[in-house]
């Protein structure tokens, strides 16, 4: 019965060959050749319930990239679904939606100054979404329907005003705060208002009716507030783009056929994009806030393709346009930098998972 011994030896050999040969895959990152100065901080929200929001740091002159900058500096993760961040003074304020925290860090060192929990009196998460700032205060829209005010000296929440359902983007024009009330959690009965809050009295003045499911609001230098609304994400109710006059607080223009999902304003030029989640169809356009007309139907003038745009911003120091591109919403994506003529300057790939905000430092 020698065969049996051989068989058992084969069994043992199989066992030896089947050991754990699965190693971590290294993130493939190519740094840009581009010669520049300054630094960028890139916020990535990660995936829901995975606690994997990250803040990446890139120093152009040193060509140094740290993808988990916040973790490295603070020995703890940012938390779950970091949604927005702003630079105000020497500090950066980060809204972490699911963790329901505002993380305040020093812009130069990356070290946490304070973590502000955002919960109601019953200890329920208010779920912070977007941030804006003015006159020593940071304003914060919360998914529980409130606009909160943080004093930047004490770093305490010092005011609250009730807005509409599930507020998203917010902006400031004419000493007033405009808050987009999405009603996203009441799908399909979305909200369709923008709350106008007086900064001085911190009271809601009125609600302006806009299209269903408003998302982002930004103001230009003329006192116009632009609103993008997402409808029900289908062709039956496409994205809409509207203009509010902040002197009369009414919608004065509806840009039909301009199905904007997300946008940003820089020097009275709007950089806007549309993205269809079903078909991946998208476009990126520029728009003049003074003539109220599209400047360029195709912002990108070289053969660069942005497959799934996730955010759009302008570097205030050099006017370059930064677009983040997500990789199937589940994998690490890229930051693409274009000059104002729509030509690709450089790409930093695999910088984070669903990158949604960039802060530019000198």
């Amino acid at each position, binding site marked *: *019965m020698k*065969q*049996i*011994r051989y*068989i*058992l030896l*084969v*069994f*043992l050999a*199989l*066992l030896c*060959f*089947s*050991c*754990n*040969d*699965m190693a*971590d*895959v290294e*993130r493939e990152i190519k740094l840009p050749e581009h010669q520049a100065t300054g630094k960028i901080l890139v916020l990535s929200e990660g*995936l*829901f*319930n*995975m*606690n*994997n929001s990250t803040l990446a740091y890139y120093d152009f002159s040193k060509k140094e990239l740290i993808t*988990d900058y916040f*973790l490295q500096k603070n*020995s*703890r*993760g*940012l*938390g*779950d679904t970091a949604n927005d961040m702003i630079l105000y003074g020497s500090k950066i304020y980060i809204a*972490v939606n*699911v*963790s*329901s*925290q505002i993380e305040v860090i020093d812009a130069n060192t990356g070290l946490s100054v304070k973590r502000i*929990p955002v*919960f109601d009196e019953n200890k*329920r*998460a*208010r*779920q912070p979404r977007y941030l804006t700032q003015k006159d020593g205060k940071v304003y914060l829209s919360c998914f*529980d*329907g409130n606009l909160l005010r943080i004093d930047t000296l004490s770093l305490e929440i010092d005011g609250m005003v009730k807005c509409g*359902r*599930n507020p998203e983007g917010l902006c400031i024009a004419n000493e007033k705060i405009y808050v987009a009330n999405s*009603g996203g*959690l*009441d*799908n*399909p009965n979305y909200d369709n208002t923008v709350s106008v809050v007086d900064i001085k009295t911190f009271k809601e003045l009125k609600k302006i009716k806009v299209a269903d499911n408003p998302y982002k609001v930004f103001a230009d230098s003329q006192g116009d507030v632009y609103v993008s609304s997402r409808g029900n994400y289908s062709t039956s109710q496409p994205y809409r783009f509207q203009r509010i006059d902040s002197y009369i607080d009414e919608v004065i223009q509806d840009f039909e056929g301009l199905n904007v999902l997300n946008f940003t304003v820089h020097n009275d030029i709007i950089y806007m994009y549309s993205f269809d989640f079903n078909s991946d169809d998208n476009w990126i356009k520029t728009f003049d806030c003074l003539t109220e007309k599209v400047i360029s139907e195709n912002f990108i003038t070289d053969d660069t393709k942005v497959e799934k745009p996730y955010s759009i911003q302008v570097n205030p120091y050099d006017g370059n346009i930064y677009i983040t591109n997500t*990789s*199937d919403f*589940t*994998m*690490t994506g890229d930051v693409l930098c274009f000059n104002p003529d729509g030509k690709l300057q450089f790409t930093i790939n*695999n910088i984070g998972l669903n990158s949604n905000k960039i802060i530019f430092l000198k």
Partner: protein
Amino acid sequence: MNLSTIGRLLTFAFLFFGSTLALFAQSETDSVRQLREVTVTRDAKRTQNRSTSPIQIIDSEKLATLNALQISDAVKHFSGVTVKDYGGIGGLKTVSVRSLGANHTAVSYDGIPVSDVQTGQIDIGRFSLENVDNISLSIGQTDNIFQPARMFASASVLNIQSQKPILPNNQSVSGKIGVKTGSFGMFNPAFLLNSKVSQSVSASLSGEWLSAHGKYPYMLNYGVIGKDSSSLETRKNTDVKNLRLEGTLFTDFSTKSKGYLKGYFYNSERGLPGATIYYNTENFSSQRIWDNNLFAQAHFETQFLPKLDFQANAKYNRAALRYLDPAIPNSEGKLENNYAQQEFYASASALYRLFDKLSFSASSDLIFNTLNADLNDFAYPKRTTSLSAIAGKFTSERVLATASLLYTQTFETVKFGDASKNQSKFSPYVSISIKPFETADFRLRAFYKNIFRLPTFNDLYYTQIGNRKLKPEDANQFNLGATYTLSNKQFIDFLLITADIYHNKVKNKIVAYPTKNIFEWTMLNYGIVEINGIDLSADAVFNLSQKTKFNIGGTHTYQRALNKTDAESRSYGHQIPYTPRVSGSAKAGLQTAWFSVNYTLIWSGHRYAVNQNFRENRVEGFADHSLSLAKDFSLKTSTLSANVEVLNLTNKNYEVVRYFPMPGRAFRATISLKF
């Protein structure tokens, strides 16, 4: 050395020890020809050895040694399986075999599938081990061709076989009462009553209650373990209340005909602890779920003609589920959904023994499923599935071969919108097992199966997530293996070694995992997954003396389950989420006349929580050691048994699913009286 390394070494040591002993013992058995014993245990071993496709059986005797409370605890001891466990008694537990995904594993109760057309995944945590005679996992399909067509219709079948009434010495009543208690406020009384109603009719009634607050401490790490900050937290909203009642009537109509009628009722209320969210653990878990399940099934079989057997099976199933999230910031301030699904099932099969060694079978099943939900614009889907199978089997002393062809046809209708396309498909299966040597009970085996799984009603119709254009998910399975068994009455009581290598290819793969909470699933489409793997197992019992036995065994699984969807994708060639490259189990036990002591180990190598196999997505491997001590006291007409267990000895809150920590060290005590 990390835990997974220790686990791997331990298993290795077990298997090595087992195989070496077999090498050593071989000379002994050449003279002593194998003796067949007609005990259940031996039958199970024999089936496992002879089977043309891998079948693993855990009988009641072995179940008692596995430190298992729920079916899921025992299933972790099968090779080739990955149990996704969200932790705690109430946490969802699903089983995936050879990386094919939980939807490809059919779970059957006494040979009739337990279905869930809504999610397609059966929570195997809800089945307790009280009243279970054996559980078996067959990959591909079993060699039993005389069974409902539905049992041919999945990539693997996990069968739970309940106990048939045992009435020793013509007792008119027998049974068992017992209670388990332990950590996390667990209280679990159970009873089983068997009774002889008449000469040809016997009945069994069983029931149990399980409750626990389920709270346990765990360490939440805010970064890399041991390097970054952490806090000690308590897992909350983990309470469970379950009630199970089950009754069966067994009848022998004649010497040639028999049947049973079973009723099953299950009711449960559970908290759904969410993922442990950084800085928001307190708040995050307040969701609740209520399950209410009722089924009745009947089985009848008869020898119609000397060469012709016939069986019929029928089932009615109703499952209602209520889900509540009381903390969602919508205008109502809560989210509440109610679902109810129904199934009507009928099956008829015939077996014709053409020759001594050759038999054929034909089976035809009809299944009707409905799902209702109080969701906006819900589709109210109805699906009729017709399954027909023909099969053949050749059996001789040295060769066993089976082949089958299954034809599936579905008809789907909805109240609103378009229904998913009707499907019609043929699924072939062939398998063979050969005994090459006259004297040694060594067999080589191989099977090929092409099967698919239908998209579930959630996959197709769930508000916003569902996609009515989903295609069925195709799976091709190839297996090549060898088994070896040895049994004598001397030093080696028995020994069973199996080794299989396999290749699976999944096309149009629909992968679902919860990204919002553990009840609502988000669809991810991986397209193509290629899986290559090795399953090894060894199991042995040694007679140390007349009344002392020592058992030892282990399993080892190696799987390369790679995403091969799109060469341009950033996760091409990466191992699919929550699939370890290696995993396994081990056990050892000593049974003496006075007491028995058992040790079990479950271990797994690291996995990745998302598509990309990056360092930061890594979920570390784990090893879960448990130990138990049991003693039986013989009373006049009954036996009193006591058992104490220490579970997860090393007290590590390891994670099977990222941010769903498992409980640390726990204790359990059982007292039962058999009469």
